[in-house]
C-alpha cells in the first residue's frame, strides 16, 4: 500500500514536470523561438532596448529606471489592442504620479505619421515607440498582439499579459510593478525623465 502511494506521488511530480516541459517545447516549436525570454518571465531582467519614438527621439528602457513600466506591444491593425488603449490612458493618469510609465511599442509596418495619427485619435498620453524585429525577438518573439510586460522600478519583469486582458487584471499587474516603491525611490533620483509625450509629433518621413 505504501509502495503504491509513493509511486502515485512520483507519478504526480513527473507529470507536472513533463507538462511544464511540454508547454515550453510546444511554444518553441510553434514560434521558432530563439529568445531566452520564454516561459515564466517573472523575476527576469527586462531586456534593454533602444527604439525611435514617434517624434524621432531615441528612447531606451533604462531611461525609465526607477519607474514602473507597462511595455505594451500593439499595432494599428489589432482590434483587441484598441480596447486596451483607453485603459492605458486612464492608468497613466491614475498612476503616473506614483511612477508608472506606459510605453507603447507599435509593431506596424507602416509610416510613423499614420501611427501617430491613430495614437492621437485614441487620446494616447504616453510614449509610443516604433517596434523592430529585434525587440520582438528579445522579448520572447512577440508575435500575437496585444502583449504587455509589466516591469518594476528595478527593471525586473513582474508580469506578462498575452492577448486582451481585463482592465482589472491589467491594473493589478501595474500595482505589482509599482510595488517595489521603496527600492525604486532610491533610484528615482538617478532616473532620466520620461519623454514629454504630450509634445510627440510624428517624425518626418
Amino acid at each position, binding site marked *: 500500500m505504501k509502495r503504491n502511494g509513493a509511486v502515485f506521488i512520483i507519478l504526480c511530480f513527473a507529470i507536472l514536470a*513533463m507538462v511544464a516541459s511540454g508547454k515550453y517545447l510546444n511554444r518553441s516549436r510553434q514560434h521558432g523561438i530563439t529568445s531566452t525570454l520564454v516561459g515564466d518571465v517573472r523575476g527576469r531582467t527586462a531586456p534593454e532596448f533602444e527604439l525611435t519614438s514617434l517624434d524621432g527621439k531615441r528612447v531606451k528602457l533604462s531611461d525609465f529606471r526607477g519607474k514602473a513600466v507597462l511595455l505594451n506591444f500593439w499595432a494599428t*491593425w489589432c*482590434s483587441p489592442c484598441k480596447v486596451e488603449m483607453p485603459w492605458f490612458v486612464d492608468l497613466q493618469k491614475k498612476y503616473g504620479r506614483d511612477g508608472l510609465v506606459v510605453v507603447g511599442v507599435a509593431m506596424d509596418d507602416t509610416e510613423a505619421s499614420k501611427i501617430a495619427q491613430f495614437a492621437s485619435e485614441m487620446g494616447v498620453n504616453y510614449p509610443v515607440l516604433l517596434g523592430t524585429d529585434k525587440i520582438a525577438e528579445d522579448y520572447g518573439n512577440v508575435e500575437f498582439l496585444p502583449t504587455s510586460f509589466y516591469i518594476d522600478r528595478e527593471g525586473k519583469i513582474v508580469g506578462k499579459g498575452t492577448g486582451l486582458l481585463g482592465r482589472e487584471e491589467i491594473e493589478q499587474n501595474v500595482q505589482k510593478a509599482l510595488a517595489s516603491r521603496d527600492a525604486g525611490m532610491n533610484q528615482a533620483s538617478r532616473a532620466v525623465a520620461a519623454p514629454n509625450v504630450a509634445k510627440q509629433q510624428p517624425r518626418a518621413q
Partner: protein
Amino acid sequence: MKRAVCLVILAWISVAGLVGQEPGTKVPSVTFAPVGKVLVKPGGSATVQLDFRVGSEFHINSNQPKSELLIPTVLKLTSSGPVNVASLKYPAGQDVSFPFAPGEKLSVYSGDFTVTAVVKASAKAANGEYPLNGELRFQACDRSACYPPRAIPVKFEVSVVGQ
C-alpha cells in the same frame, strides 16, 4: 514499476500536447484547396473557384474591412505568358462582433470562403499548360489576440486547348 513508467510517458504525450495549446498561442492557418483542371480555348476565358479554409478559432479580415487600418485579405496572381487573370471576385465578409469589441462589427472570413477568378487566354495562345502563381495575404485574429500579416502560396494550372 514498468507500468508506472508507461503511465508517465502516456500522460506526458497527452497532457503536454493539450496544455501546449494555450489560447492566443496557436498559429493561425489558412489553407488553399487544390484546383482541378482549368481548360481555356485560345481567346477564351474560364471561371476558377479558389477555395480557402481559415483554421478553427480564427478569423481574417475580408477583402473589404470596415476600417482602412485593418489589413484586407488580398489575392495576387501573376500572369503566365498568354494566360492572365482578368478579374477576381471576393465574397462579402460576414459582419461579426467579437468579445473584444462588442459594439463594433468587423467584416471577416472564417471557415471556408471562395475567391472567384476569371482567367483569359490570348487569341494567339499556343496549346499547353500555363501555371498561375501568386499568394493570398491575410491578417488573422482569434477572440483575444491578433497575429502579424502572413501570406500563403496559391498556384494552379490553366490548360490552353485549341480547337
